[in-house]
């Protein structure tokens, strides 16, 4: 079943001239993990916010085409209604903390209170989300006392507890230290294994190659490619558009070592290892 359908989406922020998204179309199947890549200002974050309805409802501006999330059309819904279907986690863990709640437990409850979820169900959902993200032990802590990685996992838990069909993560680790980054990626992997549909914006292409089923590559608001990681990252025009292929791909490319399919290069450490082993 298709969870996200984007058709000829065009968008321009108010007070600007250039289209931030220019005729973007793609579809996401239930349970897929999609990596979204592209250089700065390529439209990745705008696209993410278009799926949850912040574009156009928060910013206004000029909009064309269609985004359908789990059967509802974004343009004709409100951000609150869409929040039951699609959730988003942003880069900065600090500004995602509401600031109005004194414990992690209450913080996760914020969205559920707003949506009017009954109290008993609320607690069940919060327990589940905190456990899934591995922060149940911190449930009584003040949100601002958490480390960056813990705070970001709390942000994910806050969205997961709202039980959306799709979760979008917009560079969730860009402001975290290596340990926090690892914690968050493990959490994302766990969500995906649970069957959640995940869209992950990430500039560390090694991570995308490792976790994503498919890669959506954007440049200047347009779709450059929507295919398997190995196909996308084997392309020769990555650098020309400000992207550096995963380090494993670069090495294999330099050594002219293709994957067994004879078309693409390895994109993960394991893939590169296999190829190098055979080469030896």
């Amino acid at each position, binding site marked *: 079943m298709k969870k996200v359908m984007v058709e000829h989406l065009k968008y321009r922020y108010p007070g600007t001239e250039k289209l931030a998204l220019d005729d973007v179309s793609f579809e996401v199947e239930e349970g897929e993990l999609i990596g979204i890549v592209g250089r700065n200002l390529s439209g990745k974050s705008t696209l993410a916010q278009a799926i949850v309805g912040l574009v156009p409802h928060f910013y206004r501006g000029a909009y064309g085409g269609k985004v359908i999330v789990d059967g509802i059309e974004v343009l004709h819904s409100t951000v*609150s209604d869409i929040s039951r279907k699609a959730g988003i986690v942003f880069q900065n863990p600090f500004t995602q903390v*509401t600031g109005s709640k004194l414990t992690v437990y209450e913080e996760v409850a914020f969205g559920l209170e707003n949506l009017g979820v009954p109290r008993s169900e609320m607690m069940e959902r919060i327990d589940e989300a905190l456990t899934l993200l591995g922060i149940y032990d911190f449930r009584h802590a003040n949100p601002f006392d958490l480390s960056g990685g813990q705070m970001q996992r709390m942000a994910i838990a806050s969205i997961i507890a709202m039980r959306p069909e799709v979760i979008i993560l917009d560079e969730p680790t860009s402001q975290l230290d290596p340990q926090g980054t690892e914690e968050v990626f493990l959490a994302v992997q766990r969500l995906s294994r649970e069957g959640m549909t995940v869209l992950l914006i990430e500039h560390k292409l090694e991570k995308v190659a490792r976790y994503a089923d498919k890669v959506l590559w954007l440049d200047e608001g347009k779709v450059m490619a929507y295919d398997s990681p190995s196909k996308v990252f084997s392309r020769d025009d990555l650098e020309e558009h400000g992207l550096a292929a995963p380090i494993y791909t670069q090495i294999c490319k330099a050594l002219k070592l293709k994957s067994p399919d004879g078309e693409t290069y390895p994109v993960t450490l394991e893939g590169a290892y296999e190829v190098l082993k055979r080469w030896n």
Partner: protein
Amino acid sequence: MKSISLYVDRQSFLHRIDPISKIYYIVAAILVPILYPSLTVAFAVMVISLILLFLGKVIRQTLSVYGFVFLVLITVLIIQTLFYPGNETPVYRIGQVVLYREGFFYALTISFRVINIVTSFLILVFTTRSADLVESLVRKGLSPRFGYVIASVFQIVPEMMSAMGRITDAQRSRGMETEGKLSVRMKAFLPLIGPVVLSSLLNVKERALALEVRGFNAKGKKTFLNEEKNFLAPTAVQWSLLAVILIAIIWRIIQ
């Protein structure tokens, strides 16, 4: 996480009174002496407020607030006793300086009023958790979005203050002068406050986005994670206080 709240956690009956009742008390404590402008009434209401604060077991924590109040009241006493426009009856003379009876009583009225009002607010502030106050107001019908605004200040302000500490250190280490002549100190103000303001306004946008995707503007009834707190007979206390206010007003009108 440092807190900016003045709340003091104690076991007292005032801590078990609901926040709305305490707001009613403030209204009553301000209104009654206005409706009955006499020194006796002002004194009586002040004493009641002070006894309540004492029963709240927080009087020691409130001393610093009273410190400032008393300092100003002493100057009020001096200035009014000397210069009050209605001064007629001299009671004491030190050389050229004359102390007057009218000014003295006027200063006394002011003192009772100030202490009464300050104390009635202190009762609310020192014995009420700010989160409870906001939740009570929202249950009473305050828009939850405004409830959010008030509740978030308590945490966002300390966050901004720690950002302020970082920026001050950074600017000083770059050699900015923050001491010396007044003009030097004035010039330092803008470069110090500018970056904190800018980053907090950028945060406003990010926080607004994060709130929206968590149903901040959802229509329909919202629910509460916490069960309504068990306060001491809130309806009875609130109605009694309302009755006091009403009786005072009616009494005033028919007199």
